[in-house]
């Protein structure tokens, strides 16, 4: 799995960092900071949840084939 986050569309709601604090943080303006783009398998579910809750749809999950 690969995670990418679009800082241009991020609106800083912080939903991702709230549900998946090991994968996402926020800068001083609230904009998403990706802590790692290749999560461990144990983090797949929470990564998907973070992406699905983003109101700006700024997080993209690419599942490995």
């Amino acid at each position, binding site marked *: 799995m690969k995670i990418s986050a679009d800082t241009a*569309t991020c*609106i*800083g*709601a*912080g*939903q991702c*960092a*709230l*549900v998946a*604090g090991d994968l996402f*943080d*926020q800068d*001083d*303006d*609230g904009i998403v900071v990706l802590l790692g783009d290749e999560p461990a398998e144990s983090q797949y579910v929470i990564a*998907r949840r973070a992406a*699905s*809750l983003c*109101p*700006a*749809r700024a997080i993209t999950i690419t599942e490995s084939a």
Partner: protein
Amino acid sequence: MNKTSGAGVVIVGASLAGLTTAEGLRSEGYAGPLTLVGEEDRMPYNRPPLSKQVLAGTWGIDQTTMSEADQLERLGVQHLRAHRATAVDVAARTVTVGGVAEPFEHLVAATGVTARRLLNSHGVRGIHSLRTADDALALQQDLGDAGQVAVQVAVVGAGVLGCEIASAVRSAGHHVTLIGRSAKARFGQTGGHLSAMIAELLRENGVRMRVGVDVDEIESRDADGHKTVSALRLSDGSVVPADVVVVAIGCSPAVDWLAGTGIDISDGVLCDANGVAAPNIYAVGDVARWLDPVTGEARRVEHQATAIEQAHAVARLIVTGERTAPIVPLFWSELFGNRILVHGRLDPNLPLTVLAGDPAERRFVAATILRGQPTGLVGWNMPREFRQERARLVQHVVQQPVEATEAVKGSEIVKEGMVA
């Protein structure tokens, strides 16, 4: 309309709530037919940027697109653009789309709301709402038609949307008057606590505020044979000159298509705490009025984060029968570069307690606190601290769905009102 292959899930409304429900159903493992019915002739797009980036001119309208045609195709969603549902037969489980009664196994209402209009504004040019992409384009055109010249803009309605529009239009260099019926700027679920700060911010940035007044009359002039707005006459007798008027006086739920079903549609679609309006019929997003199990009240929440969580909750319910923990509202706004986040509801009867930062510096987190527990939380330019405070409040929400101890039995509220 193309034939769907058998009765599957039909979602009426192709905006955020409807699209997220479709995505949620697939990620929960639903493999049956899935139809997304959208009134607008566009791919699903995101609305909040319309009153922010699009209006400020930093985004093109295409940047609001949430899902392209090939993405929906991969998801196995039949997307019916420019289609409208007009009736539902609850007993027969059919929904009429484009004049054809289509069978459904599950029906999700995600039709949202439509902007209320000013009385007597029909046929007068220069008067806008801001709800759809077409609205945003029309407004942009009127603002741009003046040829990079600053125009007089009157924004009617001093709620969140009105304040955002005033901020974006003012930032683009136009002259803005914000007109509000209430004596204070109403700002979402903040119980009046932020009114003074927001009014100060708007004034400081050159927005003229006219509050505690109604619009009595629209004055117009003739421009190329078209009646075009020239000014607004207010209830105190004063006149506000206006080349462009933007109306943000609230919305009405789009529920006409559910009339006669027995479902309570007096203010949106009344649902139980899980989004069930009637057996196999659900509602999500702005149109949905879910029962809040904590307060015992049913209310609509016109916020994106709620629409997303409701959509996932209903998708999970349809596929697994599992219920989700109550959803706490979250909304955000941006005014002249200030990022404001609100979680829950600030209680108007409680004082605002500052938890971090300093309101005088426009950088703080504050809460209304009842018996030691925050009922609502606001973060103003302090997003990380806001999130940390929020995390304390939502442990039960953040964790995965509550255990389903019983299958969903439909709603008692709804059963009472149902036509058998």
